[in-house]
């Protein structure tokens, strides 16, 4: 069966670096912030070696995420210049209408519109992660005293850090849920191999006209 290239070779390691760092940051961050308040957290915290260990690991995963973000932004810039990715990043007016159509479809009425290579949800998730991790990185570094941004007090930094954590965390949960349960099984394997079946691409992303075919 012919396959089409879904992801560039640079996208795959960046995705998994982001996955590992965001997972690590979420676990260590939640253990740091909620060990006293949530049931079961003291146990997991002790398994990890204590909250201070979770805090140190949080900084290690943060460093990995910052490196990932730098590579990611560079890859996007190269993608825009070399492959014309700008269409895949910017919302079109039709996609904004699709947001409401999709909500209606999920609630039980109407149908979703055919999409191109990436639909509005994937674009939204991209911006959610990019903007979220940039804010988390700035506020996190400032809380560590590495930036000394005078307009942000520790409390404001912490509040922003928490708000954007939940924004990113919600996006990640929805992303994993959509990959596992909304019929994107080929997209899941594509994030390892880089390719999906041409038939699946035509059915799932009808407005996408890929040019790179390979025979499977």
């Amino acid at each position: 069966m012919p396959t089409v290239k879904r992801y560039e070779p640079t996208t795959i390691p960046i995705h998994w670096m982001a996955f590992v760092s965001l997972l690590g940051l979420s676990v260590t961050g939640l253990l740091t912030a909620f060990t006293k308040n949530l049931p079961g957290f003291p146990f997991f915290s002790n398994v990890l070696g204590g909250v201070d260990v979770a805090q140190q690991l949080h900084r290690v995963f943060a460093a990995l995420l910052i490196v990932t973000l730098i590579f990611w932004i560079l890859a996007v810039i190269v993608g825009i210049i070399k492959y014309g990715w700008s269409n895949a990043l910017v919302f079109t007016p039709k996609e904004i209408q699709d947001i409401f159509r999709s909500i209606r479809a999920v609630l039980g009425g109407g149908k979703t519109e055919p999409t191109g290579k990436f639909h509005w949800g994937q674009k939204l998730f991209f911006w959610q992660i990019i903007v979220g991790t940039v804010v988390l990185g700035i506020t996190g570094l400032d809380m560590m005293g590495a930036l000394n941004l005078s307009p942000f007090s520790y409390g404001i930094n912490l509040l922003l850090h928490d708000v954007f954590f939940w924004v990113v965390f919600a996006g990640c949960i929805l992303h994993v849920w959509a990959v596992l349960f909304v019929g994107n099984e080929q997209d899941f394997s594509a994030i390892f191999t880089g390719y999906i079946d041409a038939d699946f691409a035509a059915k799932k992303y009808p407005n996408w006209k890929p040019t790179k075919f390979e025979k499977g």
Partner: protein
Amino acid sequence: MMTKYGWLIDLDKCTGCRACQVACKRWNDLPAEVTEFNDKWTNPKDLSPTTWTHMDFMELDNNSQDYGFEWVFVKRQCWHCDNPACLDSCPVGAITKYDEGPVVIDQSKCTGCKYCVDACPFGIPRYDSQTDKVYKCNFCFDRIANDLLPACIKSCTTGAMEFGDLETIRAKASAMGASPKATSIVYSMPTFRNGDQPTEADLALGDQPSAKPTWQVRSIVNSLGVLGTALSLIGGFVYVIKHRSRSVKEKEGGT
């Protein structure tokens, strides 16, 4: 029944001798600090991880004086709140409010997250980047447990501080015209030589010990986050169960 302690600081009697500051350092084995000139006679400039009680030399405008100001000496230290914002903010349970009144940080549990530093409405806890821990006055809880006065009170040369049962202390403070907060420390306002009195705001004595607005919003944000995550997981689980049963029915219908 456990006695709940408090102390009254009569700012009219304080002469700013700093004996309390030195006594605190000696009892708690805290090192001296390298100091620098600042715009006041206060020395060192502020509370720090190694200065848990601090005499603030305030110069308040008073035109009745030849030199145009009047000194007020204000002892800064942990207020040992009834409902400490620092305790609520600590994610690891390193801060304890004892029945006798002291709010104490257990440094062996402190992870140096600095949440308490930001949460305290009085700006008392101080972070030490070298030890990655937070420090503040501990009410000399070890001395109290052995029926000794806190070191600062024991050393006071003018009797400006009174220690005892909190209710008695608060009653005395009220009789002196002070307005006790929900803390174990009560300040009695000083009187200028011309009879005027500064306000609590003049002396930067802070407000009631409620958490800062950012902490109140943060609490709501995190509660919503935890609730949202729990609902998402339940919703996802229900979706998967329904999805599975529909797939099974479709398969059975097809065969």
